[in-house]
Structure formats: structure tokens, C-alpha cells
């Protein structure tokens, strides 16, 4: 795993009155234990990966508390696990990134919400929206509305987040409904403090087992139960939830002297709202605002009485609601109309943008328009304008990319070379680090349809071309979904495509978590589940395993798969361990060997600056961060030459590319012999003498 959570694990055992310092998502984890959960699951993904990672590192503590921890196969699996709370008074929580994870989970979520729960069921959503997000931009709100899952959107500070986790379970039980806790990226990673409570062991757990299975047809999603469930949601659970929210004042009103106007915001937008007011000198540093604020820590269901009470008598209000559609603004408008509060002008998406993240700048601009203080923004506008003038053009962007020595990069180099030989071909991409192939310098991959869905997304387009198309899938995607919806489907339907599986051994993009086919497993996971055997079992009989760093062989294998007369799915397993994990293992080993005086060969690649002519075709086939350019040392030349900088891990792609693409003779491989033996020294003397001669 990418990060060790040893220190964080200790924080999970803090007792009453002790102060927790740390990250938002870890505070949520602690809050789960304070709430007496019986089980926790999830699927890794930014920004909530750390929750699963820390729990896996804290298995001893979990065992003591009797909490079952499971890394689910997918978000659907995680949501389905909440089924344990339908019949039994078990509190459970799962986590995943949203909306993509919620999309995958929504089948189980619908069924869960319809059946209703006895034990509190909490879904912690990492709302991957705005800057730093890696997915399509949608909001989770719609899932809450369609299934009547209550949606918490707490003010983003640790005490409030923790409090809302605890309320979340109680709300879930009070209204027999699952509850979602939505945390934006920055809230997941916010570093702050809260005063802890001691962990609570659950009534039923792996240490105090259930005795009697409970059968209740009313909880099964078959008619007529489903009809009754829908009614029950509307007539019983919803009012119960609203009552709980009101009684416990989950939403907050912050008074202000300006009685004529007000701001309604999502809890998650509260701090940004206060910052905007501070910038406009309408609030002090402690958040005391001249404009009253209604802060909705629960954004679904709304509490109409509270909204009416807040807005009544005001001239105008501003709804600060991030994302689209404007569910809250529309609901607030309808609520006011329904309650005959007609004098108040409701602003929202007219002053703030409909789409996109509500950054500091966006919110302050919107609030300034609302209070007619646009002039306060002149300095910002001027600074940006000045910068734009001085730069003359937009600065080069720097999206994330393949790491130094990444085993996936060479596959795309090979695919570029195949393109030169056979012409362009359609590539269905998938989700994972390998999606970076769509960026420069490769720009490979025509579509991305979802995690593990690469091959499924290829099934029609493959039949529409005269030549074969290629699908990319990671091993993470393979186990998440690709095995069934991709491979089984392609074999079953006699698809004739080519599938490249990136077997790097981990769920690398999310923090190198273990997968069923990881090269080594922690003790609480089954050993030895293999992609190759799974494929064989499904009847894939054209299968090649190629070391990813062998660009030439990969190129030839791809061409063979394109040309072969054999019908049916052709699978190429691109075998190369995630370099992050490899380095994590190799570095300490090497350091130990060096310290012990043992012989170590350090490999680094380089470019001869006097034969490099500065065309950079090597870079266009690589994009490795350590293969870059420098000023040309030749006074007669102007274009920068290629160079390999510090950090090169010696993966060998530079040389392989130079060979496979017949690029240039400038690359060399240098083997630095550290702690040389007598033999090494003797050989060196001999060679030096020879070369000097």
C-alpha cells in the first residue's frame, strides 16, 4: 500500500476527552467506532481511500471491538453488504467515491432503501467534484432523491463532521432509512482537531454473535411488499426523518443584523460562504455575519418549516448550492410558493454559475453580486488581467501522468509504433492509471465508459471496423467488473476484439491497494487468485503474457493479435509490477545491501548530448518525468537536447523505444557498480587502459 497508517491507527483508540488531530476522512473513521458500528466496507477511490486503508491497518483494534472489515469487490458489493442492517440491529458503514461509485452501487442502494433498515446504515461518499477530481462531474443528490436516502452535507470542520456521523446512525434508525454522508475532496483531506469519545462496542458483532435469523417478507423487494415499502417511505420514514432533523437541530441558523436578506447554503459550502462574507467585510473572523445564514447540514430531506421561517419577511435570499441541477433552489422556490411566502426573491443560479466547482473566487463573486458589492473584486480582476498580459499565453498545463518507470507506459509506446505500421485503430480505454494514455504524449484511447467497462464498451464498435480494435483494461477494472461484463460477455457473444490487461498487481491509481491477483497478499486475504486462470476458465484460448518493458515484443504481439485468422477474444496480459510498489520494496533492500558493503548495480539511462539532435521523438514515445530536455550545450545548436535527470529508476524504456522505433543512437544504459569487488576493479583497470590506448 502506498501509505502506511501506523500513526493514524493509534488515533483510532483515543478515549473520552482526548484530542484527535488529523485528516477528515480519518476523523470519520474514528466517528464510526464511537458510534458502535458492527461492520465497515467499501471500495477504494480518492478521496476516501484512506478510510479503507487505515481500517485494514487497524485490524487488531477492529478485532477487539468485534468489527468486521471488508474491502468489497466493488461499490455494488459494498452497498449490498449494508443488507446486514435490514433485518438486524447492526450499525454498518460503507464508503466509496461518488458519483461513479454510487452509480455502481445504485442497484443495491435502491433495494436497501426500499426495504428499509433496522440498524443504522451509513454511506460515506467522497464527492469527487471540482479541482482535483478524476471523474465525470455530477452530484450525488439525485441518488438521495430517487431512493429516499437521506443526505448529510456537514459544515467542513472536524467536530461537525464527527457529530453528523453520529447523528447519521441515529437518523437512520429513527427513520428506518439509509443515510449518505457527503464529503467533498478538500473536506476529506482537511487537517483539523476534535475532542474524541471512547469507542463503543456494538451490541452484536463478531464477538457477540446473532442467534436468530429474522424472516420478514415485508422487507423483500417483491410485490406487494415493494408497494407497501414505497408508501412506508413517504408516510412514515420521511416524516420521521424530518422530525429527527428538526428536533436535533441538524440544520443551523446563524443570525445576522440584516433582517431583509439571507443566505441559504449547503453545509459543505458554509466555510466558503463565510470567507466570501469576510472578504466583503460582512463577517468577522469567527464567522459572525451581518447577513443571516441558514446552513443545511442535511440537504435531503429538506425541512419546509425551517425554510419558511428563515425566508419569511425577507426581501431576498441567496441559495449557495454547488452543482447542477439546482435541486435545492428549485425545492426552496416550490416550498415558499406552497407556503404562500411570495414576497421574497430567491437568487441562486442567476448570480452563481450553474455548473462547476464553487471555488473561493466563484462564491465571493456571487455573494458580491447579491449584496451589490462588485467593486470589492476589482483588485482580483486586475491581478489576473495583469498576469494574463505578462504571460501573453496560457501557461503549459501539468496534468497527472504515468510515474517514473511505470510499467504501463511502454505498452502505449508499443501501441504508437503499431499505429505507424498498420495505421490508426480504435482503442476503448478504461479507468485506472492507464487512462493517462489519453493525455499527451500518447493521446491513445477513444472512449472511457466506466471502471472495468472497457471491453463492454468495445463490443459494438469492434464490429463496425474492417480491422480489429483494441481494449485496455487494468487488473483493478478486471476484478471490479471486467471479468463478467467484459470478458465473459465477449466470449459468450463471440466477440473478436483484442483485450490488453495491465497486470501491475495493485489498484494503483487509488493508492496501490491489494487486488485478488496481487503478487503478495496480507494474511487476511486469499492467496493466489490469478487472472490467467480466470480467463482460461471462461474459455479464452488466445492468451499471451508479455513483459511490458519489451516494447518490440509487445508491438509484435499486438500486430499478431490484429492479423491472426483466429476468431474470438484475444487477450494480451501486459505484465509489469507497479513501479511505486516495486521501488517501495527495492529501495530499502538496496539501502541495506549498500550498508552491508555488498555489491549493488545501480542502473540509470542517459542521452549523449553530442549525438542528440533535439527532435524529441523519444519524448513523444515516453513522457517519462525523468526524460526531459535541457539547454543544448553545443553553442552552435539552439534546440534543447533530451536528457535523463535524477530519479530515473532504470526501467529501460528509453533504450527499448530507441530500438523498437529505430529512433536514435543517443541512449545509453549505465551500470554503476557500487561496492565493487576485486574482479570489478581489475576489469575496470583493464578496460580503462584499453580505451585510453
Amino acid at each position, binding site marked *: 500500500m502506498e501509505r502506511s497508517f501506523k500513526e493514524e491507527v493509534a488515533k483510532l483508540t483515543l478515549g473520552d476527552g482526548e484530542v484527535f488531530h488529523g485528516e477528515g476522512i480519518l476523523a470519520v473513521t474514528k466517528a464510526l467506532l464511537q458510534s458502535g458500528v458492527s461492520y465497515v466496507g467499501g471500495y477504494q477511490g480518492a*478521496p476516501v481511500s484512506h478510510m479503507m486503508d487505515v481500517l485494514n491497518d487497524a485490524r487488531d483494534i477492529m478485532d477487539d471491538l468485534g468489527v468486521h472489515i471488508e474491502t468489497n469487490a466493488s461499490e455494488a458489493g459494498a452497498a449490498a453488504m449494508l443488507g446486514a442492517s435490514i433485518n438486524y440491529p447492526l450499525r454498518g458503514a460503507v464508503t466509496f467515491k461518488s458519483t461513479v461509485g454510487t452509480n455502481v452501487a445504485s442497484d443495491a442502494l435502491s433495494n436497501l432503501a426500499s426495504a428499509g433498515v433496522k440498524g443504522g446504515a451509513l454511506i460515506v461518499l467522497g464527492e469527487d467534484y471540482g*479541482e*482535483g477530481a478524476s471523474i465525470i462531474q455530477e452530484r450525488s443528490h439525485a441518488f438521495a432523491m430517487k431512493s429516499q436516502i437521506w443526505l448529510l452535507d456537514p459544515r467542513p*470542520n472536524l467536530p461537525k463532521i464527527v457529530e453528523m456521523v453520529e447523528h447519521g446512525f441515529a437518523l437512520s434508525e429513527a427513520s428506518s432509512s439509509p443515510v449518505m454522508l457527503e464529503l467533498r475532496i478538500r473536506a476529506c483531506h*482537511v487537517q483539523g482537531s476534535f475532542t474524541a469519545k471512547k469507542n463503543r462496542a456494538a451490541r452484536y458483532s463478531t464477538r457477540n454473535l446473532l442467534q436468530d435469523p429474522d424472516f420478514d417478507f415485508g422487507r423483500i423487494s417483491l410485490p406487494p411488499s415493494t408497494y407497501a415499502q414505497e408508501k412506508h417511505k413517504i408516510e412514515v420514514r420521511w416524516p420521521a426523518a424530518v422530525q429527527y432533523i428538526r428536533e436535533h437541530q441538524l440544520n443551523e441558523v446563524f443570525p445576522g443584523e440584516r433582517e431583509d436578506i439571507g443566505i441559504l447554503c449547503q453545509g459543505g459550502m*458554509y*466555510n466558503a460562504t463565510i*470567507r466570501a462574507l*469576510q*472578504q466583503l467585510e460582512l*463577517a*468577522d*473572523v*469567527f464567522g459572525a455575519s451581518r447577513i443571516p445564514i441558514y446552513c443545511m447540514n442535511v440537504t435531503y430531506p429538506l425541512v419546509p418549516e425551517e425554510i419558511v421561517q428563515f425566508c419569511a419577511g425577507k426581501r431576498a435570499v441567496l441559495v449557495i448550492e454547488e452543482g447542477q441541477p439546482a435541486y435545492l433552489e428549485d425545492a426552496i422556490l416550490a416550498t415558499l410558493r406552497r407556503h404562500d411566502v411570495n414576497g421574497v426573491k430567491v437568487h441562486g443560479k442567476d448570480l452563481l454559475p450553474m455548473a462547476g466547482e464553487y*471555488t*473561493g*473566487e466563484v462564491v465571493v463573486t456571487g455573494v458580491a453580486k447579491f449584496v451589490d458589492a462588485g467593486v470589492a473584486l476589482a*483588485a*482580483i*480582476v486586475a*491581478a489576473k488581467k*495583469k*498576469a494574463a498580459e*505578462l*504571460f*501573453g499565453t*496560457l*501557461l*503549459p498545463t*501539468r496534468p*497527472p*501522468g504515468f510515474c517514473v518507470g511505470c510499467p504501463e507506459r511502454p505498452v502505449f509506446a508499443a501501441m504508437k509504433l503499431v499505429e*505507424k505500421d498498420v495505421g490508426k485503430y480504435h482503442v476503448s480505454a478504461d479507468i485506472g*492509471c492507464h487512462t493517462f494514455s489519453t493525455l499527451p504524449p500518447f493521446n491513445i484511447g477513444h472512449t472511457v465508459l466506466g471502471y472495468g467497462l472497457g471491453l463492454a464498451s468495445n463490443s459494438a464498435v469492434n464490429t463496425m471496423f474492417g480491422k480489429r480494435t483494441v481494449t485496455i483494461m487494468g487488473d483493478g477494472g478486471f476484478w471490479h467488473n471486467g471479468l463478467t461484463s467484459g470478458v465473459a460477455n465477449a466470449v459468450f457473444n463471440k466477440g473478436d476484439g483484442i483485450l490488453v490487461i495491465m497486470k501491475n498487481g495493485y489498484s494503483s*491509481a487509488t493508492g496501490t491497494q491489494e487486488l485478488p491477483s496481487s503478487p503478495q497478499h496480507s494474511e487476511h486475504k486469499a492467496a493466489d487468485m490469478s487472472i490467467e486462470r480466470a480467463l482460461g476458465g471462461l474459455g479464452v484460448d488466445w492468451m499471451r503474457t508479455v513483459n511490458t518493458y519489451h516494447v518490440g515484443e509487445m508491438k509484435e504481439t499486438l500486430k499478431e493479435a490484429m492479423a491472426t485468422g483466429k476468431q474470438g477474444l484475444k487477450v494480451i496480459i501486459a505484465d509489469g509490477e507497479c513501479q511505486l510498489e516495486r521501488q517501495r520494496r527495492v529501495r530499502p533492500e538496496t539501502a541495506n545491501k549498500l550498508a552491508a558493503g555488498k555489491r549493488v548495480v545501480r542502473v540509470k539511462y*542517459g542521452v*549523449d548530448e553530442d549525438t542528440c*539532435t533535439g527532435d*524529441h521523438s523519444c519524448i*513523444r514515445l515516453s513522457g517519462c*518525468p525523468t526524460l526531459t530536455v535541457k539547454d543544448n550545450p553545443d*553553442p*552552435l*545548436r*539552439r534546440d*534543447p537536447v533530451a536528457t535523463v535527470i535524477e530519479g530515473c529508476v532504470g526501467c529501460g524504456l528509453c533504450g527499448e523505444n530507441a*530500438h523498437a522505433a*529505430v529512433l*536514435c*543512437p543517443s541512449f*545509453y*544504459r*549505465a*551500470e*554503476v557498480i557500487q561496492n*565493487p569487488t576485486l574482479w570489478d576493479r581489475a576489469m575496470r583497470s583493464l*578496460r580503462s587502459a*584499453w*580505451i*585510453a590506448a
Partner: protein
Amino acid sequence: MSLPERTFTILVAALGGEGGGMLADWLMHAARACGYPAQATSIPGVAQRTGATTYYLEIFAAQRELLGGREPVMSLAPSPGNVDVMVASELIEAGRAMQNGYVTPERTVLIASTHRIYATVEKMQMADGRFASERVLEAARQLAQRSVLFDMRQLAQDSGTVINAVLLGAMAGSGALPLPREACEAAIRSSGTGAEASLRGFAAGYDIAAGARQAPEAAPQALPLETADILALGEARLRDYQGTAYAALFRERVATLGQADAELIGEVGRQLALWMSYEDIIRVADLKTRASRFERVRREVGAKDDEPVVVIDYLKPGVEEVASLLPPALGRRLRAWAERRGKLDAWNVGLHVKTSGVSGYLLVRSLAWLKPWRPHSLRYAEEQALIERWLAAVRTAAPRSTALALEIAQCATLLKGYGETHRRGRSNFLAILDALVDKPASADAAAQAAAIRKARAAALADPEQKALEKTLGRPVTWLRAENTR
């Protein structure tokens, strides 16, 4: 004591893997040790995979006990115009902060390293795609209230540590932070491994920002060479390349320009010297087997004095290379035969030659010994013919317009690389020569020069020659590996 009216805000722009998270942790630790309420957030996501990312902190510089239970409300995201200290671990990231309005003269102290880590889009260009650093430095001077700018990566390397320690030192040394030096150092010390090295880096950064020590000297910008220097350099290079007679040929060729403009003579001399010392197998073998080369490799890979270094070269000669060495008639026949069969690149032999070893050295050096044969080879004949054609075009244009002649001269830039890259460059060069030099659409020299400049830029815009074809309005034909037809 009166309380501050607002929180102190710090925005850190860094690249994945530079320890930005650790820097934020240090600041949080120091703030907590001072008893100040503080908050940090980040948006790591997949940006940790080498992309640009930011960390954002707010510190309320007042002891919590004085607040009477009140908590300052801190934002999770920076706002333009509202940043006290802007930290950037790389120059373009500092520029990005300015582009986004996070550096304002009223408020912001900018702390940035001046080194560059080039973005993929900058380094993948066929010529020089680097963003001009000077523009960012100028913007920093105009937009920041005050700035601390020096090569912090270099300083970190010199101190045996990572850039985050130097950044923290520079922040503390600038006097802008509400945290004392001791608190920052204690925070570093508490982080355990590598603390000593980090403290060294911190101190170095601190001293420079505080003005107690000079920043490491930036490498001086190379000044443009005088024409006489260019010609001398060119002559020396060609003497090394093929002896005195060849160097004399260079001088003679330059002399045919007569009393032309000095800048033009300089540019022609520069291009001509590079062209006449074209990189054939003999040249590459020669350069790769020089003692100075092995010394340079040792330096580049950071080998210690007692560490032997084995150097392995990646060579892949093929039909084209063999043909280029044969006498012209024979070489042409071999190449034509291979082209007909689409096998020009098919039989390249991939060699991993251990040039630092006895037999590998001998193998490569023996190719270098073919130097006396070079003037009898096909490649020599072809290059000299094309040089004469180009030179004649420059000569013809010079009396009409120096600018035009200069544009024609600069077209030789397109001739670079090896194998397919070289063939593509040569075809671009020929296409421009044919279309815009020999048969210009306009008799106006300025228009012709502009057209050539545009075409040259187009030729360097993409390796698929799409831009050039569009500019010239016709296909650019050349020999590809296998899909020629």
C-alpha cells in the same frame, strides 16, 4: 493583546512526489505548538502521479486560550486576493498561481523556486517548446508584494535533502510567517527520518530568504555568438570531423556569400557547420568512443570515483545505414531495392553494445576508423549535393532580401535526427525548398520569407506533417517504414 482580524493564509503549489504533504504537516505542527488554531487541506487525488497539486493552510495567529471558546472559521479553498504567502516548488507553478489571481501586490509574499520541471507539452515539441522563464520572473516582480526567488531545488540537492525543507526555510526566513523559526525546526525534528538533512536545507533556505546568505548563482545565459566565433567554431568542428581540407571547404562555402549581411553569414555558417558534420555511423561511433564521453557519462550518472561504470549503447543499424556507407551507385541500388520491398527499416539489427568493454569498444571504434572512407560514401555525395543546392538558394536570395535569405538558411534546422526522423525532416526541407524557394507563389520577397517561416513552423508543429501539408496545400511524400504505399 488584540486578536488578528483575519486568518493567515498559505497556498502551496507543488508537483506530485515533492513532499508538499509533509510541508503542510510541518506547518500544522508548528502552528499547533504555538497554540494557534490552524487548518490544512489538499487535493491530492491522482495529482500525486506527477501532476500539479496544491495544499492550502490557514493559521489564526492567536493562542486558543485567548479566544474564549470561539473558533475562527477557516476556508478550505484559497480565494484570489486573499493569500498571504504563496509558495511554489517550481517556476511555472508560481506562474499558474499568478494566472489564477493568488498573487496580489496588496498582500502576497511569493516564495518560489526558479528551477524548471518541464511539462510534457513543453518537452515533446519538435523544436523548443519551453515556456520562457523570464516572463514568469517579470510577472513575479510586478504582482507580488515581495518575493523570494531562487533555485531551491539546487539548494536542496546541495544540502542533501528535498525541496520542501528549503521551501519552509525560505518561508520562515522571509519573515512573512506568523510562526517562529524554532517552531518550524521543532516540527521538522519531530518528523523523524531525514530530519537532520531537512534541517540543513531549512537553514540554508532561511538564510537566503533572510538575506544572510547569497542564493546560488544561476547559470549565466549564453550570449549569442558573434559571426567570427561561429565560423571559428564551425571550422574547428569540421577539422575534427573530416580533416583540414574539409574545414577549408567550409570556409570556402561561407566565402561564396561575399559581402552579405553579417547575421546572415553567421546563420549560414552555423547551419552549414552542423550540416557538414552530419551524424552518420562513423560520427556517432567516433563520439561514443572518446575518453571525454566516458568521463561525461560517469558525471551524469553520479558515479563515485571508486565505482566502475559499465556503458551499454543501444544501436540499431539497418539497410539505410549500410547503404549510406557504400559507394553512391551501389548504395543507391541497395536502398532502392529495400524501398521497393518496403523493407528499409525491416532488417535493423538491435545491438546492445557494451562500449565500455574491450570487444564492444573495439567494435564501435572500428566504425569510427572508417572516417577516411567517408568522402566516397553515398551519404556524403547526397549531403554535399543538397548543401550546394541550399547554399545556392541562399546566395540567390541574399541580394534580393537578407530576411528572405535568412529564412531559407534556417530551413536547414529541419534536418535532424536519425532514421525515420531524419527522412521526415529531409522531406519537409525538400518540400519547402521545392514549393516556396524554387517556385514561390509571390515575387515579393517579404511575402516569400513569411511563407517560408510559416511553413517551417508548420513542419515543426507535428510529426505527422499534417500542419505542413495544410500550409503547403499538398501532400509531403516520403518513405515510411512499411506502409509506404
